[in-house]
């Protein structure tokens, strides 16, 4: 009964929305999240839930695949590092509010110490722990090896290595040229651009949240909701034919999923105007073109008027418009996801004649 409910709640539309809601609440109430009590409670809760889930044979069979173990380690580290960074940030915010320097800037911590032994021993210690961990892991889990390569027989589902599964999951919502080339390219360029866009001088060299709310929230959103979350869906919840399966659902090859996604042009011309699609592709796709260019260019003055004025003044126009472009590119993914879930929208702009589908 509970498992059936979780299977339903795990569908992307629910789990993503729940994730976003929790994400928003966590950043809103950092004064609760950034305490040791909350961290401990979260840890115990997660361990109990995880232990309960692992007891399920179907969930266990997915999670115990040798190549899926790194994701469990990733999740543990992401969980811990996110909470810990917010915790340290909150502690420092309290200190700064009280007029004290951040913990990293106390006179005691500014003091210089010898690299030998302070730094060298720490590194040695971490190296030994890491080596022991790797050796134990290597003894207990054999590296996977399947049948010899056979180009004529494709396994179903065929999955990329786990660290690219977020991109593969994006393929549900975008065509390969977007999900595999353009968006990853924008991610890389955007990451490199961060130091040149974020000109806030505060928060340099110490944990904080309040002094860098916008920077940290948007980075965390991209990292947790659009990268780590999509990896989870792609790995644990996508079965044969890339169909969705709940964590406790058997990967039944015969699960039938209605493929009723339609393009914006079809919605407008056929459903709304009740007539055939125009022959000329630019007439046919004019609504998609308007929507795409409207999103990329038309929104900018509106956003600037409502939220962006102070940013524009502080950052200068070049920085500001590049940042806006990056944020709009990032938000295009969740927007496309919700359009798919709510309206079965396949492509906003569908020009298969040029292989150009958005």
């Amino acid at each position, binding site marked *: 009964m509970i498992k059936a409910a979780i299977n339903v709640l795990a569908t992307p539309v629910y789990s993503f929305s729940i994730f976003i809601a929790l994400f928003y609440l966590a950043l809103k109430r950092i004064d609760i999240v950034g305490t040791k009590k909350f961290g401990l409670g979260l840890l115990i809760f997660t361990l109990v839930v995880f232990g309960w889930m692992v007891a399920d044979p179907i969930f266990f069979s997915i999670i115990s695949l040798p190549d899926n173990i790194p994701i469990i380690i990733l999740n543990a580290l992401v969980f811990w590092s996110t909470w810990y960074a917010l915790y340290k940030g909150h502690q420092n915010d309290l200190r700064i509010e009280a007029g004290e*320097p951040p913990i990293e800037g106390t006179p005691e911590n500014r003091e210089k110490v010898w*690299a030998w032994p302070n*730094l060298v021993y720490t590194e040695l210690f971490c190296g030994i722990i890491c080596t022991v961990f790797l050796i134990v*892991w290597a003894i207990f889990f054999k590296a996977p090896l399947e049948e010899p390569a056979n180009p004529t027989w494709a*396994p179903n589902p*065929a*999955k990329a290595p786990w660290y690219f599964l977020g991109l593969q999951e994006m393929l549900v919502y975008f065509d390969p040229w977007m999900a595999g080339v353009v968006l990853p390219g924008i991610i890389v360029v955007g990451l490199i651009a*961060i130091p040149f866009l974020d000109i806030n001088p505060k928060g340099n060299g110490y944990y904080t949240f309040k002094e860098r709310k916008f920077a940290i929230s948007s980075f965390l959103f991209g990292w947790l909701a659009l990268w780590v979350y999509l990896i989870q869906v792609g790995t644990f919840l996508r079965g044969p034919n890339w169909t969705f399966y709940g964590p406790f659902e058997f990967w039944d090859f015969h699960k039938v999923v209605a493929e009723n996604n339609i393009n914006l042009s079809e919605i407008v011309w056929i459903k709304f105007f009740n007539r055939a699609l125009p022959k000329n592709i630019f007439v046919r796709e004019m609504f998609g073109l308007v929507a795409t260019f409207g999103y990329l260019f038309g929104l900018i003055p509106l956003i600037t008027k409502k939220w962006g004025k102070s940013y524009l003044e502080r950052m200068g126009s070049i920085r500001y418009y590049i940042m806006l472009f990056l944020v709009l590119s990032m938000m295009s993914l969740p927007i496309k996801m919700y359009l798919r879930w709510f309206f079965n929208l396949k492509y906003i702009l569908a020009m298969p004649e040029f292989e150009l589908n958005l």
Partner: protein
Amino acid sequence: MSEGFAKKVANTQVWKAIFRHGPPNNARNRAAVVAGNVFLHLHPIKLKKSGVQLGYTWCMGGLTFFIFLSLTVTGVLLMFYYRPTAEYAFTDIIGLREHVPLGIMRELHRWGAHLMVITVWIHMFRVFMTGSYKPPREFNWGVGVILLILTMLLSFTGYLLPWDQLAIWAITVGSNMAKATPFLGNGGPGAALAKIGDFVMVSDKNDVRFQLLGGRFVGEAALLRFYILHCVFIPLVVAVLIAVHFWRVRKDGGISAPL
């Protein structure tokens, strides 16, 4: 007695030839041990206390480098046993599994590779959360982003080498993305426009996917390419960039701390 023995060893000509200073228990020798050792001289002699605390750095960058080194060692050992041809690749992996008593070299290499991807991500997360990309460290953040991409490419190219079903289909899925590159991929937007009369300029015989795989599908040519990329080309680039990265950490003022 043991102390006397240690002293005797430390007094031999051999010991003194290797370590040119006394034990690092006073200021002079602590400086000398770091400055005089080619491996340790990556470190500054002295640094701010906040920079050595695990609660600040989580040691994720250091661990990433450490795992890179152990992957180099295990990788070189694996190269002794592995031939990158469609005929031998899979059986060589079987051999590694079946014929080496207590062999965990492939496991160490594979799990280490996964772990390095994770640690490098968490390292980037830590650097972001401490605002360490801010001036004067903007350039080094960029180098770090490139290193992060290269880490994933290293892992990705290595994924093909066992030459099993898991390998070729994961690489097939991954490399199919290259086909969709705008203008440069056979199936990408704009590629169909690159035509002179009947002559198609971007076909499946010359697009970026073909360049990556050395063929139209993941075959023996792709195996050799990925082998070279994985064992020689990307590690060399990574090694150079790691040198730049570490150099700049030092030149930009060491591990970040409040200004």
